[in-house]
């Protein structure tokens, strides 16, 4: 049901002239993709600095709140560019992306990383005064920072793996895999 809706949405985007134009434009598509990847250095790079501080592995002489507050803005600028360029990339290649297991995994991980980030932020705001100057923050903060690094790394990794066609709909796969990837047409042929 959800699979069909998603595919129909993707096929609808696919009929747009702009989508085809972006897909077929060698330079425009490559530039959008390069922007997406290189802006990661801003978003993910700042995230790494903040999380390393929260793990007690870097900037231990600087208050934790200073690092996180000062780097939040550049990180969010990077995040905004990521989202816009990412949406453009989906728009350029809608059907294959929607039917990509890696893309689906990426979106799930993205939501998980987002929830972790919000929880982490609240925990930090609530109790930062008690450990702000400690070189090594309390264990619950370190766990949150480790989870943040792991989850966002997995988001990046699944994004990278979208380039591979190992589990694309045209491959011979089990019904379950077709269902996970949302290969509606291939599922229909299965019966």
């Amino acid at each position, binding site marked *: 049901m959800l699979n069909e809706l998603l595919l129909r949405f993707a096929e609808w985007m696919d009929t747009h002239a702009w989508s085809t134009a972006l897909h077929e434009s060698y330079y425009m598509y490559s530039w959008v993709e390069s922007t997406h990847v290189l802006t*990661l250095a*801003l978003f993910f790079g700042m995230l790494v600095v903040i999380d390393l501080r929260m793990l007690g592995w870097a900037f231990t002489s600087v208050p934790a709140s*200073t690092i996180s507050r*000062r780097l939040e803005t550049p990180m969010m600028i990077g995040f905004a560019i990521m989202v816009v360029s990412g949406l453009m990339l989906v728009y350029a290649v809608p059907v294959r992306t929607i039917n990509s297991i890696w893309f689906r995994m990426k979106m799930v991980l993205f939501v998980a990383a987002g929830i972790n980030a919000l929880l982490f932020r609240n925990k930090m705001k609530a109790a930062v005064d008690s450990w702000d100057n400690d070189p090594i923050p309390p264990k619950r903060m370190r766990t949150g920072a480790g989870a943040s690094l792991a989850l966002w790394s997995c988001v990046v*990794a699944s994004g990278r793996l979208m380039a*591979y066609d190992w589990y694309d709909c045209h491959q011979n796969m089990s019904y379950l895999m077709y269902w996970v990837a949302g290969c509606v047409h291939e599922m229909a042929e299965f019966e």
Partner: protein
Amino acid sequence: MDVFAFFQWLDTSWLASISKAYGGVFAVVQIFHLLAMLMLGGMVLAGDLRLLGVLLKDVPSEVVIENTQKWFNVALVVLLLSGIFMSSAVAIKLYYNSFFWAKMASLAFGIFFVYTIRRPLLRYDHSTINPWTLRLIAVASMTTWFVVAASGRWIGFS
């Protein structure tokens, strides 16, 4: 020195026999290459934007440089090792790719610049260094690593 011979050797080395035979291994190494690149980029941005007075203005720039340099070193080692592994899979193709050579040239310059110029100079008290020199170093360093990363991405497109 025969550069092509090196690429021919790499193309048939034991590294290549792994990187060519196992697509999964190659993909995983590629992910680590990307993650290390992001870490390196983050450290370069944090350090150089501090030198430019954009970020972390209330943290002494000596502290920022010292902390980012440590993780820069880690990222660079991961990048070099994973990069050599990845190039063994497509050694001959890379030899004829001009963006690969653009990347290698800027990478060589970047490593030289960091370890013989930027780091030794920034060991001095930053307040004794001409602020314009600091700004120039910051822009040059960000530019160099941008060219390295962007040319690397472009190898895949060309």
